[in-house]
């Protein structure tokens, strides 16, 4: 096992380096000066930053050296340490992505099991159609629609439309604060999770159906083991394997999707940070966000792979079949 972990980490090294090279190249090829501009009007200030005299490869190596010690330099825009900005933003994005993950898998598994157990029922068929359609509906559109119809734009103001807290939330006390945050998270998490929910539940249903048709299930049934026990004890356990593999796909797509959700719901996470930094040509932040996102994604994939290896011992010999 240790060897497998080591091997996977070693494999990730070139990927990581490749990503830093691309990031660095993009940031340094982009035209424009760092500036702050009122989008609509007024005298814009563009700041002439003296170009460093060093050649790009040297600059890259210096930057990489600092990155390895988690020093991303200072933001060109507000001169704060980039690390400080990241520590403000990353938890919000991770919170969103992880909550969405929990919600998606938490719902997908029972839904999938139900559909596999009663494939012919009306509810099951309606669910399968609904989930298929949901997979096709763009996230940002859903976000715009719920913002329009559920937050008071045109329709009842059931949910807050912006941010993670109410302005007065600091005075609510710990429980009230938590409830307030949860209330703000409902729509963003729902928007972020439904596509993953659709995909995962289909996978669960497929592998459950497959498992239920296997000999050992038939045998168990013949021995008179209860329906419930067959479903959860025998079939589910075996069909979770491919579902675990999906984790390594779900995480990157959730982290990627959070940029749209953050923009739509005004949540100051990594997505919003990256977006503004690029607009301001704030290269240190741009490079940091991109690198960090990639690292988080790589770690997530690694985690999923390891989980898979734990569940399925065969993997350790070969490497995951992706």
């Amino acid at each position, binding site marked *: 096992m240790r060897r497998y972990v080591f091997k996977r980490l070693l494999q990730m090294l070139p990927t990581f380096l490749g990503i830093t090279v691309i990031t660095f190249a993009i940031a340094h090829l*982009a*035209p*424009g*000066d*760092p*500036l*702050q*501009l*009122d*989008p*609509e*009007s*007024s*005298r*814009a*200030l*563009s*700041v*002439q930053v003296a170009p460093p005299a060093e050649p790009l490869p040297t600059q890259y190596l210096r930057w990489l050296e600092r990155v390895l010690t988690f020093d991303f330099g*200072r933001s*060109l*825009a*507000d*001169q*704060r340490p980039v690390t400080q*900005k990241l520590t*403000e933003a990353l938890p919000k994005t991770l919170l969103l992505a992880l909550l969405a993950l929990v919600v998606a898998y938490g719902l997908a598994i029972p839904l999938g099991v139900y559909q596999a157990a009663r494939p012919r029922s009306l509810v099951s068929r309606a669910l399968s*159609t*609904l989930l298929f*359609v*949901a997979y096709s*509906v763009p996230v940002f559109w859903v976000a715009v*629609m719920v913002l*329009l*119809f559920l*937050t*008071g*734009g*045109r*329709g009842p103001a059931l949910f807050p*439309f*912006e*941010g993670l807290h109410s*302005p007065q939330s600091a005075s609510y006390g710990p429980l009230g604060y938590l409830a307030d945050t949860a209330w703000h998270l409902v729509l963003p998490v729902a928007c972020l999770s439904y596509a993953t929910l659709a995909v995962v539940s289909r996978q669960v249903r497929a592998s459950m159906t497959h498992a239920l048709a296997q000999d050992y299930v038939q045998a168990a049934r013949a021995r008179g083991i209860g329906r419930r026990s067959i479903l959860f004890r025998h079939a589910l356990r075996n069909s979770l394997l491919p579902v675990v593999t999906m984790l390594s796909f779900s995480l990157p797509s959730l982290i990627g999707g959070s940029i749209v959700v953050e923009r739509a719901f*005004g949540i*100051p996470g990594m997505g919003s940070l990256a977006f503004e930094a*690029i*607009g*301001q*040509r704030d290269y240190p932040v741009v490079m940091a966000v991109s690198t960090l996102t990639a690292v988080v994604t790589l770690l997530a994939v690694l985690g999923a792979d390891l989980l898979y290896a734990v569940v399925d011992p065969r993997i350790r010999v070969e490497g995951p079949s992706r």
Partner: protein
Amino acid sequence: MRRLVLALLLLAACPKKSTPDAGVSPELQPSAAWLSGQLPASALAGTPVKGGTFTMRVHVEPNGLNRMHDQQAEGTMTRYTVGPLYETLAELDRDTHPRYDLKPLLAEKWEESDDHRTLTVHLRRGVRFHDGSTFSSRDVKAVVDAVRNPKNPTKAIASYFEDIDALATPDDHTVVVKWKKAYFLSTRNFLTALPMMPSKALEGDFDTLAINRAPIGTGPWKFASWETGRALTFVRFEGYWGAPAWFDQVVIRFVKDETVAAQLWEKGEFDLMTRIQPAVWRSIEKPEAGNAWAISGYHRVMASENNYGWVGWNEQRQFFADKKVRTALGHLFPYDKVARNIDLGLEEPTTCPYFAQGPSCDASVKPLAYDPKLAAQLLDEAGWRDTNQDGVRDKDGVPFKFTFVSNAYSVKLGKLLPLLQEELRKAGIEMDIEKVEAGSYIKRLREQDFDACSLTWSNADPVQDDFPTFHSSQAGKSGSNFVGYRNPDVDRLLEQIREEFDDGRRAALERQVHRALYEDQVYLFLTNRPTLDAVKVGVQGLKPSLAWYDLRRAWRAAPPRP
């Protein structure tokens, strides 16, 4: 899903609030003052009371609050910090609209020598900074030194003070500035452009000064907290030298998204809502129950500002070198359609680069009219004819096809350009639109890498110098003459203006500049955009002016006893 969509559509079809209004109840009938954005006299009168929090919306979050740093000097925030938090040596006197004379603030008085090359400033005594230190001439010198230090990123503000020859501080309360040459704006710049900060706070690496995030000034409020992405809070400074402010706290909420801002405003979160979008301004006018919150809960404020939008044609391009072509383009601009559908009748057409309400604009200059026939004639005269019958005019074998570079985030341009494009196509001119995001936009303009562009110039002071914008020496990288305008007569006038200290004679010269610029159609002048704000009913004493509101004079009336 089909059911879900149906449900969404049904929701959409429902009116916003289900209460049917049988006749319009009186509190829903907006008054004439409300409709025209004039504050009622009652909102400015009454006996001030101390206490309460004042919350306002701001549409950008600054990078920092050191107003001298190039990346923190962005214009919008200056209004909200210089005055409440920082103070300058003098301020614009809001009671002298439209002249805006100088009024002493941290300076008690000042004298100019006869040759206008020496300025002596006598500082107010007994002024303390928020950190407890005493304000003195040492601090003035420190601020000027910081600005003029070539190592500091203060290029934008330093450009005003390039001509300082020497600065002396004979005693703690006197500052003497010597200028290399006489310039009509020197005194005004020196007194109003420099926010005073304690000299100690300016020591160290300018990029990472503590005051960039936690400013220290002499104003009636002092910095309390800055929650990134959300809000900036000031609290009353009890050691203020002048009459204390009424509000205990000032909270500046950063809300960039206009839709979100409008929604928060509707929830009553702001005592002052700023930058209301024209569409929102108009849509809350309908006397419906759904608009009661605005009609009876807020005073609307529409006030003139010193700004103007313009379309620039790059005169280095063969299409636009000829004045006739630029005039023709002016005649092709659908002013009425734009006013009706984009500006929603809220903006004033202009022909003038100076403050429209001041004496520097010649009222006899009339805007060009929308006149496609005249435009076609002018284009023909300029040699742009459709010789090959392909629907596009050409000259010397070159078709009249150009690209309009537009700032991707500008709402107004996004609407305006398709209209212009359609008009030009009818006149035989092909216009492409290239959207560039803000980062590259100014760079493109500065490098004159565009055929046509659009921008708004704005100035918080009615007294201004247009030398950087229109003098031929300012074309190219350093100045703001992006269109590459060159007219020796205008050059001479602009030079004369710089050395003219008599307000009347200077205004006369400026009117000449106005006439010449419009005659040359240096820009396609668009409109003055007014302030569109709203003040919560109960907040008293907020009077609009070019120098923004005077927060010191504002207070919240005690709610009427039940």
